[in-house]
Structure formats: structure tokens, C-alpha cells
């Protein structure tokens, strides 16, 4: 299949021969790659290369026309997004999603998965357990907000913070879902350099603590500094994969970017 798909012993995510067409357009064209546990893997490619489509296929938002997705060795192809999430895969979106009528703190508390308080019956059957998990989650949310140095935003309406701050909140919230592998779609797009630096540090720190990352990013400096290995996507399929240095000097990659993917 695709070249460069080295056999990976400990892959947390494995995409095999994935296909998806919209009308006549093959947005994902026999894509094959794997994300090794413990890495920060970069996913780059020109506009329209199919990066976001790939995220949607992996996370269960789109149903693939062919191929398989494996998370932690389990085939999750065709499962609902919430089921994929239960296997430890969480994703963010390219355009930040704002929660109307919630404070940042509340928006954070949507993060933890399978809270006892999410069961209507338990609200009345075991309110004590609900309160206990809510206070644990609240403490955890505030701890993470502090680590991200955005605890001063906690009481702000989630719709009133800047786009860059929103990106930080999204990352912080995703961490509350305790993912094994976190998919970030353009985490620093439109983010000022100071915040981008902060995001980079956070991703690196979380990675050291055990979270695997797969991230899409157009900011080459950012991605080359942070990610290794890097997977290059062009016209729906994997063009190449390798170290930042290897990818940067690859003529096919340069062609793909200069050619604008057409």
C-alpha cells in the first residue's frame, strides 16, 4: 500500500486503506498510516488535501466508503463518535466551537466522559455520588485551567473569550476526557504567537505525561518544531512520512505545496 507506512509495533491509531468520496471527488484516497503510542505525529498537506476529512473518518463523524480504522487494536470503523471516544480517541475541530450561555468553567465540565450525573436516573437515585463526581471534576477542571494559565477566565461567558483562548480551553477540555490519543485540527490557526507558544508547551508537556497526539497544522515552524514523525497528505492519500528534516527536504512535498494540490 502506501510507502513509508512502516510497521509499527505499538500503534494507538491505525488507518488502513481508508476511502471517502464526495460526489466524484475522492477526498480520502486509499490513505494508510499509523500513529505510534507516545508520539506527537504531525499531519500536513496543502489546502483541500483531505486532512479534516480524515479526522472526520477516524472519529466516526463520516462513514468511510472503504478501509478500516483501529484504535488501541480495536476496529472502530463505522462506530458512532461517542463510541470511538469511549475507546480513548478525542478530537477537536478546525473552527472553534463556542458554547452559548455557559461559563468557561461549565464548558470545561462537559469534558469528562461518562459522568454519573449524566444519567437522569442517578440524579435522583444516587445524588451523593453525582455531587462527589461533580466536585472531583470541578477540582480537576480548575487544576487544568491553572496549568494552562487561563484560570482567570473560569467565570467568563464561553462566548466572550478570544479565538486563541478558545483554542486553549478546547485543549484543556479535551484533556478532561482523558484521551489516549488526541486529534487536534489546526490548534494554532489564528492564534497570536504568545498563545501559540503556550499551546506548544502544553502539548509537549501533556505528551510527556503520556497522551499521544495527532495534529493538523499549516504553521510549518510550529509543526516541524513539535511533531515527529510527520505524515504528508496530498489529494487524499499519504504522500510520504518521516522526520521533520526528511519531510522538509523531500521534493515531492515541495511540489505538492507549490502545485497547490491540483
Amino acid at each position: 500500500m502506501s510507502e513509508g507506512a512502516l510497521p509499527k509495533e505499538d500503534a494507538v491509531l491505525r488507518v488502513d486503506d481508508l476511502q471517502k468520496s464526495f460526489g466524484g471527488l475522492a477526498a480520502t484516497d486509499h490513505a494508510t498510516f499509523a500513529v505510534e503510542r507516545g508520539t506527537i505525529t504531525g499531519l500536513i498537506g496543502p489546502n483541500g488535501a483531505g486532512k479534516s476529512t480524515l479526522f472526520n473518518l477516524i472519529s466516526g463523524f463520516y462513514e468511510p466508503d472503504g478501509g478500516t480504522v483501529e484504535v488501541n487494536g480495536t476496529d472502530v470503523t463505522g462506530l458512532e463518535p461517542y463510541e470511538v471516544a469511549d475507546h480513548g480517541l478525542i478530537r477537536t475541530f478546525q473552527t472553534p466551537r463556542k458554547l452559548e450561555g455557559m461559563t468557561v468553567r461549565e464548558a470545561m465540565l462537559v469534558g469528562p466522559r461518562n459522568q454519573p450525573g449524566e444519567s437522569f436516573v442517578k440524579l435522583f437515585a444516587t445524588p451523593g455520588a453525582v455531587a462527589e463526581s461533580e466536585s472531583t471534576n470541578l477540582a480537576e477542571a480548575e487544576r487544568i485551567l491553572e496549568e494552562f494559565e487561563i484560570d482567570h477566565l473560569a467565570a467568563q461567558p464561553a462566548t466572550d473569550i478570544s479565538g486563541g483562548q478558545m483554542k486553549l480551553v478546547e485543549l484543556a477540555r479535551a484533556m478532561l476526557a482523558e484521551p489516549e490519543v488526541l486529534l487536534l485540527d489546526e490548534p494554532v490557526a489564528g492564534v497570536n504567537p504568545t498563545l501559540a507558544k503556550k499551546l506548544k508547551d502544553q502539548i509537549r508537556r501533556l505528551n510527556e505525561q503520556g497522551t499521544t497526539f495527532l495534529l493538523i497544522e499549516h504553521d510549518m515552524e510550529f509543526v516541524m518544531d513539535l511533531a515527529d514523525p510527520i505524515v504528508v497528505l496530498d489529494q487524499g492519500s499519504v504522500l510520504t512520512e518521516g522526520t521533520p528534516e526528511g519531510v522538509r527536504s523531500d521534493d515531492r512535498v515541495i511540489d505538492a505545496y507549490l502545485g497547490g494540490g491540483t
Partner: protein
Amino acid sequence: MSLLSDPEAAIADLSRPEKWVLGVSAAFALFLLAALLTGALGPTYFLFLVGLAGMYALLSFGLNAQWGYTGLINFSVAAFFGIGAYGSALMTADSSPIAGGFNPLVGLVVALVLAFVLALLIGIPTLRLRADYLAIASLGLAEVVRLIVLNERWLTNGSAGVRGIPSFFEGWPVLSTFPETMPGLRLVVIPGSPILLETSFWRASLNVLLVLAFAGATFLVLRRAHQSPWGRVLRTIRSDEDLARALGKNTYSFKMQSFVLGSLIMALAGVFYTHLNLYVGPGDLDPITTFYAWVAVILGGSGSNRGALFGGIVIVTIREGTRFLNDVALPIDPAPLRLLLIGVVIVAVMRYRPQGILPPQRELIWPSAVDDAGSDPPASGVREQKGGGDDE
């Protein structure tokens, strides 16, 4: 902080719209009291109005649990109300063409089961799809239910409706004979206009008791649900369903729960109406009920339980308060005027206060958790939504 233990501090703590609502409510209560004392408003009729207000409050609670919490567009409020009303009427009335004669509690259970099944029937095919599908399907459902009630005479008596419905407390100890055993009272507050409290008054007060029980229980359940992690998932879905899905929430299941819960509450309103009015007919399924419920929720503030309560009371006030128009010689019929008035109110609210009169508090976190974690309560930035500790 409660209004009773420390009224001044409690009032100072209210937001501006809350103060406004409190003021208007107090003035309105005084006005009603004056009308009662002068005999302009009969006490029995007054209790009937309280019952109606409770009924509309239930309807708007139900719709709020669907639209306000989750963003589900349900245009068949009248159908669920009608299912509740007919379900209990057909089980309990002497004139019921099918079962009949059962204890009203049986009627209550049957009505709720029917509403539950109907909610599943409409929810299963539509809730996986985009929001507009439920809207369209529910529009159709309302008409289907109305036509079945109108045409299936063997089942519903058709256009004749169902008569001979017992009071809800029939067969209960003490309460079933309470109105008859109470003595007739004659109160003279203002000389020359005595107030008579007779059997019909006591019967009406039982109805008020019933609706207070229904609406009170519903309010408590909703309040807890709304500020829980469960309610938070619903609000996430309303704002951005994909985000909820990406964070591992089974949004289909949550939407179904919200839809079923709201539908059951609407049916509860129908059950109460049956035993209040003691007659149900196909006219009770007219879409106007759906319209009123929507107006009440939007007026009160989508997503807010108190808002729904407030909206329900406003609707009854407008509906019944404009009855005097019947006595005034007007060039046009008062019914459309009433709708016009409601339309004007809605446009004014949308223009000047699009979030409604009493929108939900911004921060909803399981209350005891906030104390446990010892974190400071929500402060700056959400000033307006910061109400007393009492609201949802």
C-alpha cells in the same frame, strides 16, 4: 439566601429583570386581591384561573425541557396535551366508549404511558436526523392525533367529546368528599359585598392543590436535572451537537430523554385539564395550545424553568384578562385581538430582550459540588445571571 429570612439582602441580590418581575408580580397580586375583596372576581373563578395558570406552566415546562434545554423543535405540544387529556378521560369517564370508570390514578398512568409511546414513535425516526426533521414530523403528528380523535368515534366519541369525567380525587379517602363536607362560608370584608365560599369553591381548591402538586413536583425534578451534568450535555447539544458527540456523548440518547421527559410533562398538563374541565373534546387539540406554549417559553426565556413558569402565567393573564373585551362593543371579534396582543408582546420581547424576560443563569453546576470543592462562587462577568440561590 431566602426571601423570607433576609428579604432586603435577597432583593438586593436580584438582577434587574428579576426585580422587575418581582415588582410586577407583587402589583398583580395586589390587583387580584382587590378584585377578590370587592367581589369583582369570584373566588371560585379565581381558583379556576390559578388552575389554568398551573396547566400552562406545565405545558411550558414540558416544551422548555425540549426546546429550552436541548433545542428540539416540537410543534405537537397540543397532541401530547391531548393524549394526556383523552388518555385519562377515556379511562375514567362514565361515557367513555372504551374502558371507563377506572380510578383517576389509573387514568394518569395510562395517559403517561401513551405519551411515552407516542414520543418514542416520533423520536426514533427523527432524532438521528437534523433538527428540522423533528419540527416537520411533529407538525404532522399534531394533525394526525387531532384527526384520529375527531374521526374514530368508537374510540373517542368523535366530535361529541367525552363527558362524565370524575374529579381527580374521586375514590380517595377524605379528599373525595371534602368539598361537600366543608361548610359554606360567608366572608364580609367590605360591607355590602360578601364573599361566598361554597362547595364549588372547595372543589376548585382541590384542583389547585392538584395542579400545585403536579407543577411543583415537575419544577423540582426539572430544577435538579437542569443544573446537573445531564442538563449540561443537553445545553451542549443545543449549542453544538457535534461538539457533544466528539466529547463522547451519545447525543441521540440524550435528545430522546429530553424529548420524552418534555412530552410526559405536557401529558401531565392534559391529565390535569381533564379533571379540571370535566369534559374533553377535539377542540382541545387545536394548535393554539402549541402556540401558547411556544409564546410562554420564548417570553419567559428559553432554557429557564422560572421563565417558563412566568410565561405560563402571562399567557393565562392575557387569555382570561381580555375576556372583558367580550362585553365591550368592538368593531371586530375579540379573539383575533387577543392573538394580536400576544403577537405584539412577542415582537416587543424579541426586539428588546431576545433572550426572554428571565433567561437561565449562566453558571449551572451541581450546587453541592461547588461547596465541596470550596471554590468561590461564580463572580464577575456573569453579573446579570447571578440570581439568588433559589432559582434553577
